[in-house]
């Protein structure tokens, strides 16, 4: 079992999830404040 594959998957999920949430919140704020 390649442990680094699990580490990479966990980081991808966390950074992808947090990044997507930030982007969606930013775009919604810009749209609402326009």
């Amino acid at each position, binding site marked *: 079992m390649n442990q680094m594959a699990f*580490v990479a998957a*966990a980081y991808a999920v*966390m*950074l992808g*999830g*947090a990044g997507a949430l*930030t982007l969606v*919140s930013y775009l919604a*704020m810009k749209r*609402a404040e326009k």
Partner: protein
Amino acid sequence: MPTLHALANPARFLKIARPLTGIFLGLGVVLIAVAVWGGLTLTPPDYLQGETVRILYIHVPAAWLGMGGWSGIAAASLSLIVWRHPLAQVAGRAVAWPGAVFTALCLATGSIWGRPTWGTWWQWDGRLTSMLLLLFVYLGYIALARADADRGGDGRIPALYGLAGTALLPVIRYSVVWWNTLHQGQSIGLTGSSIDRSLLWPLPISLGGFTFLFAAIVLMRMRTLLAQAKAEARMRRMARA
């Protein structure tokens, strides 16, 4: 408390929130980048868990913010019920989505950690099950707060739900003490940690980074909700004229 009441005016709040959003976002991104770099390249593998210990640097902040988010909802609910703080309803709604997302990320990263460590993606043990319950409680709050806002409610019903949900936090915190769980026991306390320093140092940086990012997201969402409320009030005035 005087500071809290000084922010009751949305215009005054926005004057402070606008510059803070960018500062928190910038600090969050920089600290997360440092923690990810350190956690993936500079720390040694654990003697027992091997490379998978690196998941610690993202899993713990996700758990911290999942529980911290609900503490934020509880504080907003209390200020709404006790002090009728005008921004409390907006703050509670703004925290709910990021709190739910970080709870889901905690469950997902924990599951990915569990497979190579425990040999299973999921186990119905005390810590995992109580965190899953927290996610459902978040989803209930989001639905209730949305329905209350759509009906023009004063936010008291979601606030009562927010306070009641706080009962889950000590259950999550002490689940590894009360039950014999597969999840490891507490390894970091207020007085110290059983984790070696060579492995531990990226964790506070990561905690700080994700906390700043969370705060920036909450400010963005509060600004969105305030702008939407302002636009709706303008449309109502126009419809009456």
